[in-house]
């Protein structure tokens, strides 16, 4: 089936990289393949993500809302609370 063939690569930074233990993970796409479903799946696998002040998802360098669709070609990243400056 199409959905099962599809996997997503997710880049990890800062504390999310430490929580997951690697800088990129590859996951089967959740169904539906949206930002919200991806976050739910990741929080189930890595409960420490749920303890963060916030955890956003970026798609192709832009912050994405929960209903944003995900595709295998997308550059996807977890964005824990930023602290530049």
């Amino acid at each position: 089936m199409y959905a099962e063939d599809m996997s997503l690569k997710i880049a990890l930074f800062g504390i999310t990289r430490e929580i997951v233990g690697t800088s990129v993970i590859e996951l089967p796409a959740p169904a539906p393949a949206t930002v919200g479903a991806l976050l739910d799946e990741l929080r189930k696998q890595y409960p420490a993500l749920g303890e963060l002040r916030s955890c956003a998802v970026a798609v192709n360098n832009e912050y994405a809302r929960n209903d944003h669709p995900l595709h295998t070609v997308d550059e996807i990243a977890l964005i824990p609370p930023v602290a530049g400056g």
Partner: protein
Amino acid sequence: MTPTLSITDQPIDIAAALAAVQTDAAGAVNSFIGTVRNQSGGRPVRRLHYESYDSMALTQLGHVVNQAYEKWPMLQEVAVVHRKGTLELGDVAVVVAVATPHRAESFAACQFIIDTLKQVVTIWKREEYEDGTEWVAAHP
């Protein structure tokens, strides 16, 4: 009017950032320089480590600067340079410099850029103390 935006693992050249925004048409240059403080919330800090998601950080920085140009149409030149990697006490972490014809707008635009940068630009800071490290702002 193309802004100078960069993220670098090399020491920041403040004079170059200021020179990048100066023009004969802009009489006012405001700049903000953020340096590594020796303490954070009363706790002694030994050094900082900045991690950056460069491509997104530059994309978001571009949005921030575009918003500033929309809010202050007289804004002429902008430079933002952010350091990444390991920084020692006193090292410069970020420089924002803006040039405008009149001074009030230079302060407002520079403050908007640094304030908004801190909210959206994908750079993470890990503080190193005597007895460990912590990702700043990660937890409630």
